[in-house]
């Protein structure tokens, strides 16, 4: 079995990481699709998919829960029972509401919490919140045990592993003595100097009224936040297990490759398992192609045909130079990966990449590349 097939067939969790714009969402979806085709029950947690990809996965609406591909889409995708594919867009608002409902069993109390203006403002923020919700979503579905294989796409940020740390940072705050200083004082308690300063500072900054709202919010949500942080820690440990792996997606530019190598070192340092590098949008799979030549022209070519060929030949030269560059990049990544993981190249598939067919092609080229890696070993 080739290395990527081991991921697809045997791992329980795969996390796709990489800088923004390298195509990690597409890679995540293609791995999920392939695993479902091979009979596994798969969930892909995606962040900000392209409209086309969302349609392909049947999640163009923001749904409160993961949605399984409709029977028609499953058939189109070549998924047969027991295999299945479900997808969910990690929308902070959805994930947070779902979490509050789960952690606060009394529906009235949960509703009251969720109606707080500070809470609503927080969850409506587009950024930052994703870092807090990805781990929680992963935790919920791992706990549930409904899926054999969960593929997680990660928030687009230059430090792509921030999502591992953010919820823990949050917990550290709520767990600390610092936090207790925010809670409204109990009657008769002695008011310390630090406390006075903090009241003065925060009252001064936010205005007394909002400061009190903030204190209320902190008090009401302290338990929820602490639980989130506990869950994040638990899933963080879970991610160190053998059956979880991180795939680092890069596109073939020096900058993106540098990012991927940096992430690899972070992953090693965090004791997580590197599945390998995936060099997306590379020309390497086209290496067998021949140059365009006069054989393409009919016996009496038109001017347009002649100039078209000349331009194509010019592009072919550029393509060959780039191909060589991509090869060197792949070699560099393979060296970084070492023997325990892999570096695979996926071709540029243009704008059809997010169709079922495109996702299938990505998976297929991953497997082919992986097989040739296995053979070389």
């Amino acid at each position, binding site marked *: 079995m080739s290395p990527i097939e081991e991921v697809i067939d045997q791992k329980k969790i795969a996390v796709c990481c990489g800088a923004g714009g390298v195509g990690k969402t597409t890679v995540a979806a293609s791995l999920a699709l392939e695993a479902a085709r091979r009979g596994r029950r798969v969930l892909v947690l995606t962040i900000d998919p392209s409209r086309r990809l969302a349609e392909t996965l049947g999640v163009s609406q923001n749904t409160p829960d993961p949605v399984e591909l409709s029977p028609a889409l499953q058939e189109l995708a070549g998924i047969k029972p027991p295999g299945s594919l479900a997808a969910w867009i990690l929308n902070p608002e959805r994930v947070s509401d779902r979490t509050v409902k789960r952690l606060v069993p009394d529906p009235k109390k949960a509703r009251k919490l969720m109606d707080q203006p500070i809470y609503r403002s927080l969850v409506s923020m587009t950024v930052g919140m994703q870092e807090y919700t990805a781990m929680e979503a992963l935790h919920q579905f791992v706990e549930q045990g409904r899926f054999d294989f969960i593929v997680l796409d990660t928030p687009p940020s230059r430090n792509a592993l921030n999502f591992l740390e953010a919820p823990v*940072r949050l917990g550290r705050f709520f767990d600390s003595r610092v936090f207790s200083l925010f809670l409204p004082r109990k009657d008769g308690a002695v008011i310390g100097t630090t406390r006075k300063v903090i009241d003065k500072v925060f009252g001064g900054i936010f205005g007394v009224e909002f400061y009190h709202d903030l204190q209320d919010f902190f008090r009401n949500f302290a338990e929820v936040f602490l639980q989130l942080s506990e869950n994040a820690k638990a899933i963080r440990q879970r991610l160190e297990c053998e059956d979880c792996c991180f795939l680092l997606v890069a596109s073939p530019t020096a900058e993106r490759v540098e990012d991927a190598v940096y992430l690899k070192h972070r992953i090693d340092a965090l004791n997580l398992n590197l599945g390998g590098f995936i060099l997306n949008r590379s020309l390497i799979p*086209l290496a067998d192609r*021949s140059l*365009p030549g006069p054989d393409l022209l009919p016996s009496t070519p038109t001017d347009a045909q002649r100039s078209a060929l000349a331009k194509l030949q010019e592009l072919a030269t550029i393509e060959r130079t780039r191909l060589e560059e991509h090869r060197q990049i792949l070699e560099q990544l393979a060296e970084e990966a070492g023997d325990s993981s892999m570096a695979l190249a996926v071709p540029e598939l243009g*704008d059809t990449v997010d169709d079922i067919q495109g996702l299938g092609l990505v998976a297929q080229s991953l497997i082919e590349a992986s097989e040739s890696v296995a053979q070389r070993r």
Partner: protein
Amino acid sequence: MHDLFDRRVILVTGKGGVGRTTLTAALARAGAASGKRVLVSEVEELSRQGHCPLAELFGVRSLGTEPIQLAENIQGVELQAETGAARFLTKLFKVEALSRLALRTNVLLRIMQAGPSLHEMGVFYHLLHLLEGRLENGEHQHELILIDMPATGHTLALTELPQILTRLVSRGPVAEALRQGQAILNNPDTGTACVVTIPEPLPVSESLELIDGLKKTDMAVGAIIVNRFPTLEFSPEEAAAVLAFDGIKERLGFSEFSRNQRAQASLARLQANTGVPIAIVPESHTDPENLVELLADHLSEVQP
């Protein structure tokens, strides 16, 4: 493109890998060449390790929280939440001792690390502080501030911040600072966004969504820069001829040809859907340092 530099602040935004940082540097050079005192900045990111591509484009290792000289008429700075918070407190409490005490208790730091919007708030205030800086003769110390925005989402986080927070905190010093910032950012004469993209379907889709998002946060979009545009052009007849060649899809050069066609279509889509001036930066194969000069030249030639 020239009047772009009459603004006080330009957010240079676009998804990763489109050459946004390089273009921020190029815009800075072009702005400086038009006679402005330019400040280029990037937003700090938590726990990123000593690598600052923007600074490197000017031959400097990294940027600090105080502006440093990078070239004639160009200074550089890193926008930092912590620095912003410190400036805010110092101004608010005037008494230096009290704000130092507030910072020393670590409370603010902890909160800023924990809360998603507080980080942005600190960055926002650092920016405001720099915008307000004056020289002895009363002129703005930094006439034009360019910000290399990390990812499209972060851009929106910063631009939507005043709206979200002023809804919650309608009075007090925070609200006041937000309104001051808003007055500069949301006035198209003083603040604008410059969206950098490459001519490919997905980046263009994302740029269109970003432009929509920016409009919702009352942020004007002054220009779209289409980077890495393929230089070779195929006439419709030539393109048709290529597609009619037998077995062409299996030849070298076809992948580049397809990219070329996608670029044309992507540009047409941007033109049809935005109504914003578009500058095209041709793909070039020069080394990074020359590239900055080359782009600066090119950008100063483009008319809106």
